């Protein structure tokens, strides 16, 4: 039956492991933002080859399960002979995968902006790079904040998959804990609780930001 002491005891190691979950999700979303912005810019550019490549990128990384992407990247590093920590492979894969989704979030946000804004900026002689950094992106960021927080929640959940390449985040740590205590039920429910708390906090943050930035 369900044992409360075992359940409470399993929180300590799992909360320690939550550092890695947060690290991977946050670095993943940062990398995803950087690459996603570039992909989005490529998708909206006037160069057809760039547009096609960006569309291919989005369709590939959204079409292939993250777990498969993770293994492909993990093993390809070994084949090429690059010796990097598994954490790097994890962050990189999560970030690349997020970039496909984030570029679509940007695209939606930019499509929601009145076209006249960019045209006006060009008309008064702004450089294209200035139009992006001063007119389009600041507004797009505001519009897409809730969607980005939502993406971060998805990444926190997706980061559980990096346990298969041996990173001691919450899920992996709970596997280890379950193996030593022989009480998988309590341990995994504790792990679920920690994920739930993280995500409830994030969604509260998302609602707050949505409220703050509402025009």
């Amino acid at each position, binding site marked *: 039956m369900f044992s409360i002491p075992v359940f409470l005891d399993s929180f300590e190691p799992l909360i320690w492991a939550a550092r890695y979950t947060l690290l991977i999700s946050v670095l993943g979303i940062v990398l995803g933002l950087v690459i996603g912005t570039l992909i989005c810019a490529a998708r909206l550019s006037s160069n057809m080859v760039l547009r096609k490549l960006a569309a291919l990128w989005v369709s590939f990384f959204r*079409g292939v399960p993250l777990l498969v992407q993770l293994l492909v990247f993990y093993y390809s590093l070994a084949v090429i002979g690059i010796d990097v920590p598994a954490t790097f492979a994890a962050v990189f894969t999560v970030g690349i995968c997020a970039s496909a989704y984030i570029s679509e979030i940007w695209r939606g946000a930019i499509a929601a902006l009145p076209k006249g804004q960019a045209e006006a900026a060009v008309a008064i002689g702004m450089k294209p790079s200035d139009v992006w950094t001063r007119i389009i992106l600041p507004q797009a960021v505001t519009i897409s904040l809730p969607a980005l927080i939502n993406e971060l929640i998805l990444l926190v959940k997706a980061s559980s998959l990096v346990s298969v390449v041996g990173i001691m985040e*919450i*899920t992996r740590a709970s596997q280890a804990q379950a193996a030593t205590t022989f009480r998988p039920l309590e341990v*995994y429910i504790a792990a*679920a609780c920690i*994920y739930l708390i993280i995500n409830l906090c994030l969604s509260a943050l998302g609602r707050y930001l949505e409220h703050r930035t509402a025009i």
Partner: protein
Amino acid sequence: MEWSILEQYGPSLLRGFGVTVLCWILGTIFGMALGLVIALVQRYAPRFVGWIVQAYIEVIRGTPFLVQLFVLYYGGPLIGLRLDAIPAGLLGLTLYGSPYFAEIFRAGFRAVPHGQIEAARAIGMAEPTIVRRILLPLGLVSSLPALVNFSIILTKETVILSIITVPELMYQVGRMSAETYRYLEANLVLALFFWVLVEAISRVGRRVETRITKHLIERT
């Protein structure tokens, strides 16, 4: 990749693909059914039942699918829930998908014009009849695009079942690569395979969607 490998492992890969498709279709059907029940309960049940259902939705949506599977498959036996890998995986997929499907149905029901339901009440239809003849037919059609979309997302989630040893495609690929040491090639081919599969399903989905929406516009 040598062809002899494919010859040797072809049958098990095919079987794995069969299990993937089976899990996907059954998981989608059961998940949709449970989601529909949840959406109806949220609409009609008394408030405290609604709260319980809301808590269930938050828990499922706030936790990773993998952890849910671990609780079910490894934790289940401690409370007497002993399931083989495939039933556990199916139950997991059903539970995981249900809140998302419920949200889709809820949005679909909201899209049914309120006047239609009021009109049905005004001519004296009983509430169950209203659900059956007004709410469901109208609500289901408007939630169709989102349903197709989420079903496609579920195809990608089926690979996670391999971690709890459900013998689906990814599990078989994993076994093959462990025996032949061809990890990279095997996973690369798997990635391409899923890419094609998901693209194909979403193309078909979009076509079905356009057809049904066209029909809808003609009728109304």
